[in-house]
Every structure is written in C-alpha cells, then in structure tokens.
C-alpha cells in the first residue's frame, strides 16, 4: 500500500481524506493522552536514571583513577628523589673519602709543619754574640787624656786599635748571627705556604660538603612532602612528567627520522647481500635486513647506556656486579663499532650502486657519460653518516626511558580526562532527555489542542453548575525522577 493509497482511503479528494485521517489520529491521541504522557514520562525518567547511574559510576572510576595516578606520580617522584639523594650521598662519600679520608695524614702534615715552624722560631731566637768582657776596661783606658808622652801615646793608640778591632769583630759576628736568623726564617716560608695550601684545600672540601648537605636537605624536604602525599608536590611532579613526555616525544621523533635516513642508506646495498627479490610476509628481505641492523644498533645502544648506568630500563643490568657491567660496556661498544663500520661500507656500496645505475641510465638514454668533479665528497659524506648514525641512534635509550616513564602519567591523565568528559556528556544527555520528555508532552497536547479545548469548555460549563468545593481541578502532571 503506497502513501497515495493511504491518502485516498476515505475519499477520492486527497484534502478530505487527509482531514479524516487527521481527525482520527487526533481522536486516538486524545483518548490515549494519559497513557502517552505516562509513557513519555517513564521513558525520559528511565533514560535519565540510566545516564545518571552511568555518570555516578564514571565519577567513582575517575576518582579511583585520579587516586591511582597520584600514587603512581608520587611513587615515580619518590623513586627519583631517592635516586637523587642516593647520588648526592655517594658524592658526599666521595668527598669524605677523597679529602676528609686523608684527614689524619693532613693533620700529621700540619703538626709537622707547625713543629718545624716552632723549631725554626726557636732557632731564630739565639742572641747575638756579646762584646768581650775586658772591652769596657780597655775603652776606659783609651779615653785617658794623652799628655804627649810617646810611650803612653803608643800604648793608648794600641789600645784604641784593639778596641776598634774588637768592635769590628763583634759587628761581624752580629751580622753573621742576623743572617743565620734570616736563613732560618727563610726556611719557614715554604712551611707557611704548605700550611696555607693545606688549610685552603680543607676549606674547599668543607664548603663542598656544606653545599651538598644543603642540597640533600632540600631533597629530603621534597621526599618528606612526597611521603606525606602533598598535593602541591604531586601537581609539580605531574607537570614535570608532562614536560618530560613532550621533550622525549620530540627527541624520539628526531631519532626515528635519523633511523629512516639510516635505513635509506643501507636498504639498497643490503639487496646485494640478501637479494633484491626475496620477500618475507610481503616485505622485501633486504628492507627487513636493513631494519634489523638498525634495531640491533638501537638495542646495543640501550644496553650500552644501561651498562653505563645512564638509563635504568633493565633491572637485571642494574643489579649486575661492576666487573660484569664493565665487560658489557666493552662488548656492546665493540658490537656497535663493528655495526657502524658495516654501515659505513654499505653506505659506500650504495654510492657505487647509484653511480652504476646512473651510468646505465645515461647509456640507455644515449647520453655520453662524463667524469663528475668532486664525486668523492658525497661518497665520503655517506660513509661518515653511515658510521656516525649508529652511535647517534645509541643515545635513543635516554629519551626512550623518559618517554616510557612519563607515558604512564600522561596515559593516566588522558584517561582521567576522557572519563571526566564522559561524565559530563552523560549528565548533559540525561538532562537533555528529561527536558525533551517535557517538551514532547507539551507537543503532544499541542497536537490535540482542539479536543482539549472542548474538554476545558465542558468542564467550565459543569463547574458553573456546582459549588466551588465540588469542582475537581486536574493538576498538571509532574514528572518524577531523581533530583539533580
């Protein structure tokens, strides 16, 4: 039955038929008004209830997720702070071992120096030689007035000479004594300098130690706040984690681009080794081989940085004894160097193949091949790139570690945000359905406004015949539901 058939069911005139249909529908709707209102109201209430329940469940989930995220962030922060404190304690230990460990010997050195200085001081205290005892008597005689007697004069002159001689000797002896004292003092100079230098070293060590201890104090304060699950610290750690995530992503993207360049360098010459036609799961074997070499280089880089204790991705490497770790460093570095050399040679081979292919193309096109100047520059460039890139890729372990650690925080935050958005959408949808139910009820009444108006008129007419108290006024139906 088509729509036209339906339209002409009651009359050939479509307008009249449509009118009859409309009357029938309106009558049916008027008769089923109460049930329809209940249906709309129940439906809206149930849907709203379901959505509110969903929102409540999601709120609980979000709360649990936030709590868990905070725990993870604090745990990460605690771990980091512990590592920082441990590292600083190690530094302090090193300072103590290096500088203060030698304190007894320094003390002995200082004591020896002081003793030596004291000894020198004692030596420098020696009094200068005094003039001879008879010198005063001779001086008195020499001052006696000369009375012109030649013998007496001669004697007095001799006495004066003797006095002067004695004086000169005394002066000489005094000077010698002073020089000896000066020499003793000169000997004291290196001791003073040594003492000063030793004390300066001690001062520097103590200052270092003081600075380290201040840093440790700060770290300990943070650590205590983390242990107390302080919200501010959690927020700071989250922010730091997000920053780490974006930086690590950027560096990883750069590393991947480097990997792609590396791949392009070695994929073509690889087909010389494994063939250019064979395939594994739809991928060229040469491409897979090139990719495997790059991945092995990255893996070696990760192991190298792990063994050097720069990154902490593998617990088994961290717990290895130092001797074994040193061996691992040597082995991974050796493998990395061999792979870099292989890559450099492959890059050179790529250049040769490209040259060969270019010559063939020119020959096929009938163009004369000429010697290109400075052709060696790109050849060397490719070889250097082939050698350097594996080592550069080895450092990818550092951003990779940051990325892995920070991604847990970021994933947690993103999940929380999604759940929060879902809560909002659920509540909004619930409210919308509730309001839509109301609108639908009014729309229903609007369609059947004619019989409703007639009903109202009849009721009014009846009411005019009754007392006020006998009149029953129908209350507008309220929709139930949970109060928002």
């Amino acid at each position, binding site marked *: 039955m088509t729509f036209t058939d339906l339209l002409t069911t009651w009359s050939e005139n479509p307008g009249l038929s449509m009118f009859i249909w409309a009357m029938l529908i309106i009558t049916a709707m008027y008769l089923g008004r109460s049930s329809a209102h209940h249906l709309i109201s129940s439906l809206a209430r149930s849907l709203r209830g379901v959505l509110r329940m969903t929102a409540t469940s999601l709120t609980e989930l979000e709360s649990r997720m936030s709590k868990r995220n905070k725990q993870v962030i604090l745990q990460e922060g605690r771990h980091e702070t512990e590592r920082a404190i441990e590292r600083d304690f190690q530094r302090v230990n090193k300072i103590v071992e290096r500088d203060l460990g030698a304190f007894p010997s320094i003390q002995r050195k200082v004591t020896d120096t002081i003793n030596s200085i004291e000894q020198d001081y004692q030596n420098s205290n020696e009094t200068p030689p005094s003039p001879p005892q008879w010198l005063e008597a001779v001086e008195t005689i020499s001052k006696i007035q000369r009375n012109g007697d030649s013998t007496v004069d001669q004697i007095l002159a001799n006495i004066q000479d003797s006095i002067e001689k004695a004086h000169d000797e005394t002066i000489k002896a005094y000077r010698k004594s002073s020089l000896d004292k000066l020499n003793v003092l000169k000997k004291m100079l290196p001791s003073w300098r040594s003492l000063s230098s030793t004390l300066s070293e001690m001062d520097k060590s103590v200052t270092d130690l003081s600075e380290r201890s201040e840093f440790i104090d700060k770290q300990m304060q943070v650590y205590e706040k983390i242990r107390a699950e302080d919200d501010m610290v959690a927020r700071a750690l989250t922010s730091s984690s997000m920053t780490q995530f974006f930086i690590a992503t950027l560096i990883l993207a750069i590393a991947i681009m480097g990997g792609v360049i590396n791949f*392009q360098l070695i994929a073509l010459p690889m087909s010389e080794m494994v063939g250019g036609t064979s395939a594994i799961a739809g991928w*060229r074997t040469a491409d897979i081989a090139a990719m495997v070499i790059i*991945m092995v280089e990255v893996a070696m880089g990760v192991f190298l940085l792990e063994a050097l204790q720069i990154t902490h991705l593998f617990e088994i490497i961290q717990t290895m004894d130092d001797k074994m770790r040193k061996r691992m460093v040597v082995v991974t570095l050796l493998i990395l160097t061999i792979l870099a050399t292989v890559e450099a040679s492959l890059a050179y081979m790529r250049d040769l193949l490209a040259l060969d292919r270019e010559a*063939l193309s020119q020959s096929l096109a009938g163009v004369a091949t000429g010697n290109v100047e400075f052709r060696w520059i790109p050849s060397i460039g490719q070889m250097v790139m082939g050698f350097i890139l594996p080592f550069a890729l080895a450092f990818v372990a550092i951003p990779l570690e940051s990325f892995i650690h920070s991604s847990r925080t970021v994933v947690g935050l993103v999940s929380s945000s999604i759940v929060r958005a879902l809560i909002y959408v659920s509540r909004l949808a619930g409210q919308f359905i509730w309001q839509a139910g109301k609108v639908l009820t009014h729309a229903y009444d609007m369609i059947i406004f004619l019989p409703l108006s007639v009903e109202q008129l009849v009721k009014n007419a009846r009411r005019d015949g009754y007392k006020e108290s006998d009149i029953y006024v129908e209350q507008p139906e309220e929709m139930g539901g949970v109060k928002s």
Partner: protein
Amino acid sequence: MKFGKQLILAILGLGLVACGDQAPKTRAVYMLIDTSGTYTQELDKAQRITNYLLGTLNAGDTLALARIDSGSFSEKDMIGKVTFDIRPSTATAQKYQFKRKLDEFVAKARPSGHTDISGGVLQASEFLQETQAEEKIILVFSDLEEDLVKGHVRKFTIPLVGIKVVALNVTKLRTDNIDPRDYLERLDNWEKRVYEGGGAWKVVNDLDRLERLLNS
C-alpha cells in the same frame, strides 16, 4: 609496565619497517619486433622501447627479445633473453650485455619476406608461462598485418591466460588511408584473438608515454 615498554619498542620497529617498500611483483616481458618489409625502418623506436625496459625492469624480472619473420614460432628468432640477477650490481652488468646484443641486432637486421605474428605470440606465450612470473607481458612492435608463408597454419586460439598483450606503434598502412576500416578491423581481430586466448589487450601508439607499457 614491561608490556608497555615492549609495545613501544614494537611500534618503533614497525615504524621503521613501514619506511620500506612492499616487495614488488616479478615481471616477465617478451618483446616481438616486426622485421618485415619497410617496418625495419622503425627499429630505432624498438631500440628505444627496449632501452626503456632495461631501465625499468628490476632484479628478478625477465626480458626476452625476438624478431617476427616468416616463421616466428621458433627459438632461433630469439635475439636475447635474460632474467636479472637478484643482486643489483650483477643485474646492471646483465643489462649492459643485453643492450649490446640489441645494438648488434639493430645494426644487422634485414627485412623478412613474410610476417608471422601469431607464431611469435605463441612462442612468447610459451616462454612467459615457463617463467612463472607474477606479471606477464607480450609487447608486439608491429603494424599487425600478418602475411603467412603458404601452408603455415595459424588460425587457432593462442593460449594467453594471465598474459597482457600490448600492441606498440601500430602504423597505418598505405591501404589504411584509403579505407581506415581495414586498420580498425586489424586491431579488432587481434583484440578478439587475445581475449579468446584468455589474455588482456592494449594498444600504445604514443611512444612518448612508455610508462603506460608496464602499467595495468
């Protein structure tokens, strides 16, 4: 956490693999060169096409070159055939060698008395089926006017299942200018024969667009 690390490493690995190309299909191309009558004057064009093929085909692909003469269903008419080595350097050496053979053939080519295109196509079909390449193509460099030696039987369906036949440089004959229907009929007949044999048919007359030769 460990699973996360493995997942990230796997993603990085896949990212690098994705940089590579999917393994290309192996191709086998058999080119038939008409040497009858005045068509020998067109040989330089055939040489150009072969050079293009040498430059385009990769390691693992097969190329064969044969002349169409009075009786083409014979290995003797084969000028050269090669399956390029899986190593690019060896493949390049093979291409040089093949080019030399082609140059020699072009220099020494003499016009044949008759034109046995069907025999050549049948020979090509047999050869290509043996290569087991994923893509098989017969290039017919001819005006498609068949002129058989009396007694030669060629009116049968040529098996061409899975083979694409490309007619190249189908020149118009003097009579075609008088009645172009002859030319169209010639093309229609060959198209019908190819489809009957289970192959695909294509005509490329514009030799400036050689990339269309191998593209489906």
